[in-house]
């Protein structure tokens, strides 16, 4: 595909999926710098996989790219200084915001399919049929991914001193 055609297709995909990508990215990062970094990774992923994004499964691919970009951004951030960015919350909600940030970070560490499944199920509030469709698997497998993701999250969070509000 010629570069001009690729650029045209990229901008079209970007326009179509930008609201969805922005919303998911923001919910998973809640930090402007992290959001911008994840968005850049997502755009790079879209540009590199443009050929795959022309078919009917484009939405599922974009979902995968967005979550993979989110994981990369979190990995970079925690890799630099080990600190997690925490958005300044209202005073009475401070510790709860820290909990949310830790959970976001743990979601980014999950295996790709589990991460996608749990984000679709609990953050996007999608039903299992839609999750199965996007993950290209059966509904039972989608349930299994969500269940495994919840268990993994629970185990990973067990060792951390979280605010039980």
């Amino acid at each position, binding site marked *: 595909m010629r570069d001009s055609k690729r650029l045209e297709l990229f901008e079209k995909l970007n326009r179509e999926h*930008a609201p969805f990508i*922005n*919303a998911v990215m923001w919910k998973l990062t809640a930090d402007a710098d992290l959001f911008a970094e994840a968005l*850049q990774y997502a*755009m790079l992923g879209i540009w590199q996989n443009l050929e795959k994004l022309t078919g009917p499964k484009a939405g599922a691919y974009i979902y995968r790219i967005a979550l993979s970009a989110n994981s990369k951004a979190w990995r970079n951030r925690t890799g630099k200084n080990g600190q997690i960015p925490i958005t300044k919350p209202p005073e009475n909600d401070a510790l709860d915001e820290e*909990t949310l940030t830790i*959970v976001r970070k743990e979601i980014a560490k999950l295996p790709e399919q589990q991460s996608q499944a749990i984000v679709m199920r609990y*953050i996007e509030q999608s039903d299992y049929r839609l999750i199965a469709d996007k993950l290209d698997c059966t509904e039972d497998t989608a349930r299994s991914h969500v269940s495994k993701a919840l268990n993994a999250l*629970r185990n990973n969070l067990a060792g951390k001193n979280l605010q039980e509000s």
Partner: protein
Amino acid sequence: MNSEKLKQILNKIGQADVPPDIALLAGQVSRNFSAALKIPRPQHWFLTPVRLLAAAAVIVFAFALGRWSKPIPPKITIYASQSPSRLTAQSNNDSFWQQKTMAAMQSRPYAQSTGNLLNLYKQYLKEKQND
């Protein structure tokens, strides 16, 4: 942390409002990324087929020139033919010193030429003999 609590936290993350300025930030990131894609990439001009062919032609032509060129023949002076007035012991002027003088007046190709080493050596022997 129990399952229900975790689900509540996940739901809370899902219900987080997206601030309106995020769309602006996203637009800015998107514009920067698109602008970076539009920067023309440098091409490896030296790898284009036409230039490769031209370079090959130049190399072949240079070798061919070397193959077809002929060496410049060396300037050989034949000692015997250039000494018609050479005097010998049997001539009328048979004075020893006169012969020496005449020999000293002859040209000396050995001292002047820069040709083949063997020929030079032969010439040197001749001149030595004449001296």
